[in-house]
């Protein structure tokens, strides 16, 4: 009888949104087939990860208190039932967990008595570095690409950018923390195929690693994290610079991140793509080679090919987002303005409809108030409120009426 916990702990920008979306939409079917993905909402495992690592996250942490223990409890209960069973926990920010937090996470799901596997999906840094900057821009950051790269290159990593980037992207270090207590055959690296590979190859690799191959699942992508081109990312960064002081975070997410970035600018696919600057390919290639050597030496299970971690060579023409083509940025900005106008028109219509409903409600209320006795009562109350004695009389009346209402 097999009992397994599969902990998918990263890394960001490796198809994790799609993978988690498939698990979430199919959680009922998975459970019937002996696989637990315990989530009552799409971001349930994100909340659990915030709780485990005690991370504040724009107010979401309010909903996270106690989530990890609850999730781990569900996993233990499920694995305690008869039959072959597996439980999956997946979130990419788990990659930053400290050794102490990893120890707590493993113990809470039953390690060492339970068979725990750690899965890390990985992608070459040539794509990860620009993708991470773009993600920062979509989260209100204002810093130019050049300054982001300076902070990523800084060996001291004493900036928030550097500390976070290497915390979630440095594969051997993540495995030092997550896999130190596990035999190498229980540590799986899923490589993201190189650009141009078959569309469903990454899903196949996930499916094999998590033992989902023979299960009946709906794997059509519904939730993805689309990427932007160079002028589009520059346009969003400039919007951040202008609007951050004026637009509160609660409005930024639906208007800028979702409407402008994801729903509008991500559709512009013929603009130059964001890439790593040519001068950074050298150190990145050297670093990836060292990481691949560590992975081979440790004997982890690699699902895919470590050569996938060798990034593509630099493009013939590099499009620098800090010196983006102004005409292209203006065009992207116009698309953003148009999208906001369309959305604003929808909101104006909604407001008009709501106002009409409100006016109708008021009219009905007034009709109810126009009964002959109402005006007389209103006049009496106003007159009584004008004097101390009158107010006292009203209080006595209201107290008596509410007592009589309660008894009625």
């Amino acid at each position, binding site marked *: 009888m097999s009992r397994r916990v599969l902990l998918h702990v990263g890394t960001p920008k490796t198809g994790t949104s799609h993978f988690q979306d498939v698990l979430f939409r199919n959680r009922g079917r998975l459970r019937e087939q002996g696989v637990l993905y315990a989530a009552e909402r799409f971001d349930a495992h994100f909340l659990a990860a915030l709780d485990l690592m005690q991370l504040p996250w724009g107010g979401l942490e309010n909903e996270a*208190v106690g989530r990890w223990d609850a999730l781990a409890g569900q996993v233990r209960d499920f694995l305690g039932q008869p039959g072959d069973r597996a439980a999956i926990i997946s979130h990419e920010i788990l990659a930053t967990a*400290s050794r102490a937090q990893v120890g707590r996470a493993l113990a809470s799901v039953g390690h060492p008595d339970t068979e725990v596997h750690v899965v890390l999906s990985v992608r070459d840094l040539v794509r990860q570095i620009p993708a991470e900057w773009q993600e920062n821009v979509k989260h209100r950051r204002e810093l130019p690409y050049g300054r982001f790269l300076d902070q990523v290159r800084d060996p001291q990593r004493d900036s928030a950018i550097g500390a976070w980037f290497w*915390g979630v992207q440095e594969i051997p*270090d993540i495995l030092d923390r997550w896999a130190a207590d596990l035999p190498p055959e229980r540590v799986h690296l899923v490589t993201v195929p190189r650009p141009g590979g078959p569309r469903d190859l990454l899903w196949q690799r996930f499916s094999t690693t998590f033992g989902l191959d023979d299960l009946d699942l709906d794997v059509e992508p519904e939730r993805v994290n689309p990427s932007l081109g160079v002028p589009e990312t520059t346009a969003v960064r400039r919007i951040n610079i202008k609007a951050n*002081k004026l637009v509160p975070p609660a409005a930024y997410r639906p208007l800028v991140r979702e409407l402008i970035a994801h729903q509008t600018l991500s559709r512009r696919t013929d603009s130059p793509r964001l890439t790593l600057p040519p001068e950074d390919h050298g150190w990145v290639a050297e670093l990836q080679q060292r990481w691949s050597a560590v992975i081979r030496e440790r004997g982890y299970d690699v699902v895919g090919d470590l050569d996938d971690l060798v990034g593509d060579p630099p493009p013939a023409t590099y499009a620098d987002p800090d010196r983006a083509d102004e005409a292209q940025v203006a065009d992207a900005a116009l698309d953003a303005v148009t999208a906001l106008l369309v959305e604003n028109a929808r909101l104006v219509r909604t407001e008009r409809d709501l106002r009409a409903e409100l006016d109708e409600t008021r009219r009905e209320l007034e009709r109810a108030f126009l009964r002959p006795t109402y005006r007389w009562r209103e006049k009496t109350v106003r007159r009584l409120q004008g004097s101390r004695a009158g107010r006292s009389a009203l209080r006595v009346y209201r107290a008596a009426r509410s007592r009589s209402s309660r008894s009625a």
Partner: protein
Amino acid sequence: MTERAWGWVAHLREGGTTRWRDWTGSGPATGPVLPGAQQLELLRRANLVGRPSAVLAGRILAVDPPRRARPGLPLVDGPPVPDHGPRPVDPTTVPDTELTRLAAVLLAEEVAGHTPSPPRRGRLRPWRVRYHLLGDPEHVEPWRRHLIARGRPPGGYGGRVVVVGTDTGRMLVDLWSAHCFRHGAVPWPQWLARRVSRGDLPGPLDLDALARREQDRPEPNRVHVVTDPALVGRLVGVRRGPGLPQPMAASAVDLGRRVCAVLRPLAAPEDRARLITDVLRPVLADAPGLPLAVPSAHRAWVRSEAERLHRQLGRGRYPVHGDAGLVLPVDRAGVENPDVAETLALALRLLLSAALTPTPEEGS
């Protein structure tokens, strides 16, 4: 080098203050992983101030840095490190900001270890004055708690609206402090710069706008604006109030800001508010030091906003209790930006004094 590092750990656990670069002793490993340079330096700094208990020393060495801070760093000239991972550092070069963040995590854990007391609610007084309090949160909140504890909760039909304010510079510091103690906030200079760039006074401090909004309600309540907080009592029907709140030391608010930011994921919102009010704030309120002041770069803006408010209060169709001129800025001693070294010193004093440490009954 590994023995030298573990020897230094033991030295620090015993209260030693020798810097890593001057350390020459050695000792056996006492754990699976060497603590990070930041944790070791924080313990050394604590040893310079007092004598941490063995438990506190253990907590310092094991504490995880908060979000987006560097993980535990290896020691330069310490045990061999792999090619990957953070690079080794000399612990004395770790900035005070980073050490303060670690100390804030430890203090937040102590605060979260308390059992929040239920809110004090006195027996409802049927003859109480019905009221709603608005305005400067550092004045309004103590009044609200004081009145609830005495059976006079806010609300009720026909209540009077009391809008409380004081001098505009103090109100801005108060609003930022209230944000800090609610959920953490961006540092004071950035927060104020954002407010200035938006143009107007923040909503909770625009006493005239608050009063007019209340008057424009379909069922207008009787609105009173108070510029001298000592006069609130008679408007809400009590003789004695909670006492006028004194502004906290700048380092105390800065530490509160850092602790509350870390506390967010540690306690549910309803518990957190009570923990902050009942446990953290009273301890920080006693910290010595000058309060915050408006930075010189923004004084002209504050003065012009205060003068606008003064004019509007003079024209308002509501009674103003106290001189309307009390909203104009007051020159008082203060610091324009909290000094992180002072914040760290305060954090270490609190850790060593165990002022926030829950009693065994509370922690159980």
